[in-house]
């Protein structure tokens, strides 16, 4: 293969690769400053190669503009390289205005200088065995070189700085660019400088463009390869482009028109096929990336979930412990309370027993004496002993109620419910009170309109309740009497109203009426010094235990009272 043809192929291939890479990068992200700068850079590399090619093949004095063109476009390259490293890997070029002004000024000077005779003053023709013509160097060529080397050094400084502050991913990207640069520099120094100067041959100089390829590829990888998977895409793209170029060269080298047409058709088919291939690879890679991203996110989510789970378990454990502790405390407190309650009940039972025993004995002896089995005595003595007996009875009743109230209040009392005629209960209790009412000269009126119902009650306990209410009415009534009325407020309830003409009560008294701590009013104290306010509380509790209700009404002090007893019908 002759040298001219080899040169052509080298330049066409490198041009094609450069163009392809530039386009790939550009279309990969058209909005990124880095990608745009890279595209412009590759364009100028292209232009530079065109100048290079024509400078070589057009031997003679007419080569001078081409040679100057090489230096002119080279200035574009190195200054664009500076902007490239400045913006990489960001999407925006961040540069201070003074820096931009300085660099652009230097660039303009250098580029302009390249076109003047001060750099290349003329050509001297080709030496035997060489390909390229020698150039006569102008006086300002060191200035041009200084500018070029200067900006390259500036670029290297920027690169090193950025590499040092880069993230792991960015470092990988910089590594690609630096590797490309290193290969470029080493090969440029070896083939262009060392070989030319030490061996005195310019044989490799025309092939200089090849050295630029690794740098380009490195940069492309760096730009596109944010994720390593993209290598596949780039490889596919490069391979495809290489095939296209090969086919293009084939077309250029065709011997006949027929061959050109045929090869062109094949080329078109291959191009279409290649595009399709690139697209599908891209899609596949894209899908894979998505999948990887999803997997990554899923892993993160999983880890978080795991953490959360661990935390949750710990929290649950902790709370369970707390709850258990609280439960233990509560349990102990409850046990303590139960013990206290038991102790209280036992205390009341024992106390009651202890109080009852002497009362029983007093009552017994009183009865014995009164029976006169052991001799007669004065009527006055009989009267006194009678009074001892009555007081003892009252005391006994009091002691009995004391426990009944305590037991009912804690809901422990056992009731023996049975159906009873309501009237029988009322009449029984009234009979018990008859002597007392007649003594006080009070009337008791039982209004009997309508039939009396059967009620489901514990007769003994319910009688106690009724007794206390009737007894209370009678106790606090000095004149007049008691009227008892039966009504049916609702179809399934019966109501007994115990209305008296007694002292009545204030609102305040009414509120405290059924409480165990009931303190009687001043008036009540005056009229009936033996009341103790526990009887109504007992009645209230008994009636409540029968699903009934008890309440009192009064129009005020000295206006009488009305006690209402309500009970479900059996």
């Amino acid at each position: 293969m002759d040298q001219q043809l080899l040169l052509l192929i080298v330049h066409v291939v490198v041009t094609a690769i450069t163009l392809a890479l530039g386009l790939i990068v550009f279309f990969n992200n058209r909005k990124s400053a880095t990608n745009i700068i890279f595209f412009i850079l590759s364009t100028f590399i292209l232009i530079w190669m065109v100048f290079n090619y024509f400078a070589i093949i057009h031997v003679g004095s007419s080569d001078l503009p081409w040679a100057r063109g090489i230096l002119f476009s080279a200035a574009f390259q190195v200054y664009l390289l500076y902007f490239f490293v400045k913006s990489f890997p960001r999407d925006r070029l961040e540069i201070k205005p003074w820096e931009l002004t300085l660099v652009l000024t230097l660039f303009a000077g250098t580029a302009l200088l390249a076109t003047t005779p001060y750099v290349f003053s003329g050509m001297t023709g080709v030496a035997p065995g060489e390909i390229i013509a020698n150039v006569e160097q102008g006086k300002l060529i060191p200035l041009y070189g200084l500018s070029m080397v200067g900006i390259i050094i500036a670029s290297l400084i920027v690169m090193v700085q950025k590499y040092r502050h880069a993230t792991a991913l960015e470092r990988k990207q910089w590594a690609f660019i630096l590797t490309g640069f290193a290969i470029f520099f080493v090969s440029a120094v070896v083939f262009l400088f060392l070989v030319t100067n030490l061996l005195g041959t310019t044989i490799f100089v025309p092939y200089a463009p090849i050295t630029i390829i690794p740098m380009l590829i490195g940069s492309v990888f760096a730009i596109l390869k944010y994720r390593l998977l993209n290598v596949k895409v780039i490889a596919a793209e490069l391979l495809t482009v290489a095939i296209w170029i090969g086919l293009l060269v084939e077309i250029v080298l065709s011997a006949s028109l027929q061959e050109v047409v045929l090869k062109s058709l094949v080329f078109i088919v291959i191009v279409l096929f290649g595009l399709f291939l690139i697209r599908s690879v891209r899609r596949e890679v894209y899908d894979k990336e998505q999948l990887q991203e999803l997997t990554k996110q899923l892993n993160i989510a999983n880890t978080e979930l795991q953490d959360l789970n661990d935390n949750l378990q710990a929290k649950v454990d902790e709370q369970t412990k707390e709850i258990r502790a609280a439960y233990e405390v509560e349990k102990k407190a409850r046990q303590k309370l139960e013990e206290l309650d038991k102790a209280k009940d036992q205390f009341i039972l024992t106390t009651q027993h202890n109080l009852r025993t002497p009362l029983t004995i007093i009552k017994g002896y009183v009865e014995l004496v009164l029976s006169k089995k052991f001799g007669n005595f004065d009527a006055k003595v009989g009267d006194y002993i009678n009074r001892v007996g009555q007081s003892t009875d009252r005391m006994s009743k009091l002691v009995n109620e004391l426990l009944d109230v305590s037991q009912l209040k804690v809901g422990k009392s056992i009731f023996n419910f049975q159906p009873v005629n309501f009237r029988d209960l009322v009449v029984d209790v009234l009979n018990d009170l008859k002597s007392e009412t007649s003594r006080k000269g009070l009337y008791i009126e039982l209004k009997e309109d309508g039939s009396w119902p059967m009620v489901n009650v514990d007769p003994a306990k319910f009688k106690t309740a009724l007794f206390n209410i009737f007894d209370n009415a009678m106790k606090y009534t000095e004149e007049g009497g008691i009227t008892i009325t039966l009504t049916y407020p609702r179809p399934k309830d019966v109501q007994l109203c115990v209305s008296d003409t007694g002292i009545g009560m204030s609102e305040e008294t009414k509120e405290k009426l059924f409480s165990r701590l009931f303190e009687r009013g001043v008036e009540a104290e005056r009229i009936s010094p033996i009341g103790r306010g526990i009887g109504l509380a007992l009645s209230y509790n008994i009636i409540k235990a029968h699903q009934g209700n008890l309440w009192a009404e009064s129009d005020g002090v000295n206006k009488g009272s009305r006690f209402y007893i309500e009970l479900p019908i059996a």
Partner: protein
Amino acid sequence: MEQQQNKRVLIVEDERDVIEIYKIDLEQEGFIVDSSFTGRGALDKIKDFIKSPELQPALIILDLLLPDISGIEVLKKLKGDPKTADIPVLILTNYSSDKIRELVESMKNTEYLLKINISPLELVQVIRKKLSS
């Protein structure tokens, strides 16, 4: 009035005064009154009844709070033995617990009375009624 001639009554009661006040009316009624101050003493007497049925009382008056063992235990022993189970028992106590009342009344031929609510004469009436039925 002396209808209950030669019938025996056993009073198990730790208060001498209580025995005294009941004893007078019971004896007037014609009963032979035997008494025990303790639960164990009562159980010993019950053993004697088993040996010689002619000593067996027509009725036992039993208190619940006794110095040694409780009246409930005495009652259980008494009602647990077929030879003494039919003897009527009057629990005469001032210890008024509904629970105990339920327990006592579930026993055969046993009645529960509150001492404080019943006078000696009333007691005699109750016993008379009980033995005639």
